[in-house]
């Protein structure tokens, strides 16, 4: 039985990966995404389990970001259900939908920090809107989140005054403002140098292990995938379905799908 408390067990992660002990925190069922009449993803289903780092990967144009945007409720699927602990975000509306939205945070590809606010103010926005904490408490909590992502010294910097990697970390801090159980990250490593990218990977792993946050990450950065992913699904635009599911290293070494092996071995198209 899953409780929020057992997420914080120091060895939770290792046991969970091998034998998921809990019901899924996210269930995608018979999901179809389409733009107009053009089907991008056709009838797929998968589960994300509490505390794992789950990666959605695939080639360019396969629908990774589309999948993510449907999961976070920005787009409405052509068919299917997206369940957060049993509650369908597709059919939810009003306060129920609001309640589901509070269960997760999202880091967008370019950070999407509010340019007219300092980092502290950015992180404070969800706290101001969803809690009635006193101002000092909000400042402290926002500061703790920024400290957690290594930006404790940059509270009063504007987003334009910090680097791309720092903006992404600040975006993670903002996404964590209300301590959601799930964080969605859209291309966290895109456009970052290897050192910054590795630092971000370490941050994801640290947050996953210490706070028990479930991560759903969209990326196609192979080094990052090998470092952070507990489990991955791979989308293929030619069949519009999941063509592989499992641990990335295992998929690379044992998959019987030549395209999957080609992807993981970074081999160019032939012919």
């Amino acid at each position, binding site marked *: 039985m899953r409780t929020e408390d*057992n997420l914080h067990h120091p060895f939770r992660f290792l046991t969970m990966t091998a034998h998921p002990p809990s019901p899924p925190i996210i269930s995608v069922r018979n999901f179809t995404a389409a733009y107009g009449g053009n089907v991008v993803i056709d009838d797929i289903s998968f589960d994300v389990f509490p505390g794992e780092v789950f990666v959605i990967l695939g080639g360019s144009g396969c629908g990774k970001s589309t999948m993510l945007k449907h999961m976070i409720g920005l787009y409405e699927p052509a068919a299917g259900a997206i369940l957060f602990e049993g509650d369908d975000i597709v059919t939810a509306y009003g306060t129920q939908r609001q309640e589901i939205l509070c269960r997760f945070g999202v880091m967008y590809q370019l950070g999407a920090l509010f*340019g007219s606010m300092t980092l502290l103010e950015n992180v404070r926005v969800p706290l101001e809107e969803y809690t009635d904490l006193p101002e000092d*408490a909000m400042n402290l909590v926002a500061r*703790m989140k920024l400290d957690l992502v290594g930006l404790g010294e940059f509270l*009063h910097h504007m*987003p334009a005054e910090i680097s791309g990697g720092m903006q992404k970390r600040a975006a993670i801090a903002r996404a964590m403002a209300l301590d959601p159980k799930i964080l969605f990250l859209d291309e966290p490593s895109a456009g970052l140098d290897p050192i910054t990218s590795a630092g971000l990977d370490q941050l994801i792993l640290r947050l996953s292990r210490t706070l028990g946050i479930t991560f759903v990450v969209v990326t196609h950065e192979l080094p990052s995938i090998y470092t952070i992913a507990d489990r991955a699904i791979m989308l293929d635009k030619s069949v519009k379905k999941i063509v592989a599911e499992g641990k990335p290293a295992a998929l690379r070494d044992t998959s019987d799908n030549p395209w999957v092996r080609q992807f993981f071995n970074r081999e160019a198209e032939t012919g």
Partner: protein
Amino acid sequence: MPPASTTRPPAWATAGPLDGGGVRLQLGGRLTAQSITGVWNVVEEALRGTVPERVVIDGSEVTYCDTAGLGILMEVRSRVEPAGGTVDVAAWPENLRPMLDLFDAASFREPVHPRVEHARLPEEVGRGVVQLYRDLVVQLTYVGELTAALGAALLRPHTIRWRDALRTAETAGVNALPIVVLIGFLLGLIMAFQSAIPMKQFGAEIFVANLVSLSMLRELGPLMTAIVLAGRSGSAFAAEIGTMKVNEEVNALVTMGLKPVNFLVVPRVLAAVVMTPLLTLFTCLAGLLGGIVVMLSLGFPFVTAYNQMVNSTDAVDLLGGLVKAFFFGILVAGVGCMRGLETKTGASAVGDSTTRAVVSSIVLIAIADGIFSVVYYFLGV
């Protein structure tokens, strides 16, 4: 003791004296951002006044704690420890213990001060003057660049991006027709009505036609058209080019060896200088129509009102207005594009550019109109 279980909130706290001096805080329930406001108030109350030498936190009844809940511990430590006191966590659920190591309370001792940039008056004035000088240099450079680009473009018309110019003429000119016609009609109508009342006292209602036709053709037609275009199209130019600047599209032009002024500004200015006089013509016509409607309601036949208007103005009045409109068009498009190119980084910068474009355009239009009035006076126009 915790509150009675029947009314127990999701998170709760009690504070009491500690044997041997100090404060004992008992925390319980789910300590989350949404639930800890009451807990926070209890802690604030317990630490108000003299900071206790010793605080013991009993978290044995805590069932869940997120980082916001952990903030309570940080707050207690950051207030008690700098004053030489000690904070002991007597009990804390085993499964939540790893979280206690996540933060260093020493990091949070300094209170959060809002970002305030202190500057003395002389410093402010100095900065202002330097900024003004820089702006002036940028604007003069821009005016020079634009003049050169327009001259070169007119000498070699095939280098002009006519497709962009036509598109801009449609969006900034043709699509603005309904609004300028409406404004012009209402302006003529209101002016005629307002002037008819005092003129009636002197039996001079017929001169309402003179007033409307002269003021519309010479002054209000071009002025109102320019102001509407500044709000509608000048701001759009600033926002579009500003967004291109933020997205590094302007940098892409530069690295392709293309001049942003030639590529982006010249087509817009050309479109504006053609469309502003045309729109002014429609504004004037609509204004005259508004005046005629009032004249008809005052009992004058259409022919009388028409003849009065035609006889009170001549082609020079109309031409004077159109020349003004021509220059207003350059101002609106030129300033809108300049503010767009000056855009810094971030979404708010685009908003700033748009605001500055509208304000600068309107101010410059008013100044230019004043200059035209003086020049026309001396030319006897």
